[in-house]
């Protein structure tokens, strides 16, 4: 995974709350067996509307998506994260994220940043009045800065460290094989197994 330390980019204002993962990428686009090529499906239904923010020239090159509350609700599809990344987004800012989406994004290196709703509103206003406003998202200092403002955000130390080092979660867990072995030895035999098949 690529290291994430700091990102400087421009924003895309998505003034909608409850953006579910079926909107981020509809089910019909989930049929690929690879991790790439999902950008076509990103917000597929909404992109038919010429007024939709991603269809506006001014926001074409934005890399920081600024969305309403409860972003990423619904299906657990990690394709939603891949679609945003494949399209070019590096950061999503919202006042609240759905748990599974947030987990998926932080595993895959798409930084999800939680700001107060008032701060999101202010950021929308700034981006809309000047789409070229540079936004700096810094994991080192845990802050979002634009137009001289610096807004702190919270992220747990462990996830921050993992993202800044670009570490693969599985590789880290593989170092705990001994602990897993001994847990399994002590595990109750009452728990079911899928094999052999009983019918």
């Amino acid at each position, binding site marked *: 995974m690529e290291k994430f330390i700091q990102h400087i980019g421009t924003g895309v204002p998505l003034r909608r709350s*409850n953006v579910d993962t079926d909107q981020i990428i509809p089910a019909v686009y989930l049929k690929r*067996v690879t991790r790439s090529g999902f950008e076509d499906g990103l917000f597929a239904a909404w992109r038919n509307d010429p007024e939709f923010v991603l269809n506006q020239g001014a926001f074409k090159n934005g890399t920081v998506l600024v969305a309403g509350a*409860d972003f990423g609700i619904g299906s657990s599809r990690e394709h939603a994260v891949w679609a945003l990344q494949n399209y070019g987004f590096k950061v999503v800012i919202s006042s609240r994220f759905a748990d599974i989406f947030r987990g998926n994004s932080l595993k895959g290196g798409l930084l999800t940043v939680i700001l107060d709703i008032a701060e999101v509103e202010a950021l929308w206003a700034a981006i809309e009045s000047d789409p070229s406003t540079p936004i700096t998202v810094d994991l080192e200092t845990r802050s979002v800065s634009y137009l001289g403002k610096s807004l702190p955000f919270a992220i747990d130390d*462990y996830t921050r460290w993992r993202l800044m080092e670009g570490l693969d979660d*599985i590789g880290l*867990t593989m170092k*705990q094989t001994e602990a897993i072995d001994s847990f399994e030895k002590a595990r109750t035999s009452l728990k079911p197994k899928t*094999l052999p098949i009983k*019918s």
Partner: protein
Amino acid sequence: MGKTLAEKIWAEHIVRQVEGEPDLLYIDLHLIHEVTSPQAFDGLRLTNRKVRRADLTIATEDHNVPTLNIDKPIADPVSKLQVDTLRANCKEFGIRIHSLGDKDQGVVHVVGPQIGITQPGMTIVCGDSHTSTHGAFGALAFGIGTSEVEHVLATQTLPLQRPKTMAINIEGSLKPGVSSKDIILAVIAKIGTGGGQGYVIEYRGSAIRALSMESRMTVCNMSIEAGARAGLIAPDQTTFDYIKGKPHAPEDFDAAVAYWSTLFTDKDAKFDVEVSLDANELEPFVTWGTNPGQGLPLSGKVPNPADITDTEARTAAERALVYMGLEAGTVLKSISIDTVFLGSCTNGRIEDLRAAAEILKGKKIASSLRMLVVPGSARVRLEAEAEGLDKTFIDAGAEWRNAGCSMCLGMNPDQLAVGERSASTSNRNFEGRQGKGGRTHLVSPLVAAATALRGTLSSPADL
């Protein structure tokens, strides 16, 4: 201080706990389907990793599969590739799979409970957000993404931040015509789509205790629609009776029951949040908007966004009414329906089919609509056919299909057309969820059946 049920299960599964790091949790059962697993298997191959516990893993085909002509190759080549990829991956890594045509093929969350492999006290994961369904057995069960699927395949563990706990207390008894689907729709309308975010919900109270296992599964299934990754119910005699005799029920059943009987929230345990609902007050529920929190009693009217004070909720309601093609103030029961869908991991089990069949028996559905009846699994289909339910549905004018996710999500041939309006027993009314431009009203099986007969949204009491 005592522990809540969720805290007990969590504590029993900690492989490693270090200050400042997520807990490493052992996973007892990993369910797999074709959509969220191919990239995970690819990851294993790239890193030369093995599946650690194939004997705690099980796969089935559900999201992509057609519900007609299942003896023929899948017509959509991209869907076919995804299903073929799952079959090849399971073969390569030695994982049990139930493919189309097998009696245990079906929606992954119907399959686990029906073979008795979903049991109290377990940690269960699947690359599907409705994994919360299994919480009905007193298991800690939640949906995960594909990176986590790969993690579980490789290590049988997951690093997780401990969630907070929420109690939802539902006391009283349900009126006739009101079901567990109405309970959960009312819960979501009350706490919102983000209300459970960061929590594990425990459903408690006399109304929950009185529910059958399958009804409990409906409640837990939609926990994620309230934002909670997991929802659970303490196991009791109803749970034990349901598991007994199933293929994978424990051989030493008494020992298992003795263990399961320790799985409850201690009297002196404290939840981070408690919410209460009066079951006596509940009515049949229906959603009018484009998220599951936008629901109301069926006796009501489409709300007027102007009456909503919260700006975001008002904007969302305005957008929802445009998408749904509804006017504020419209009587909900006057809304005409084009398609009734009975099925899904929420309401595709045998009891759901029985409840709907009882209403339809000897009657005909309205000529203005179509009704799809899709059993949650091949086993449910066989059971229904043995009871003659298929004949009831077919005689009423409904279509009797094979098992799969079907019209719950627009990924297989069963979809709504642009502007088509459904009354659906599934779990999500998001824009385009059942097909691009489709309009979804979430309802219980009882309301679905009554609606099928009358052509407009209806409760059984209207018949």
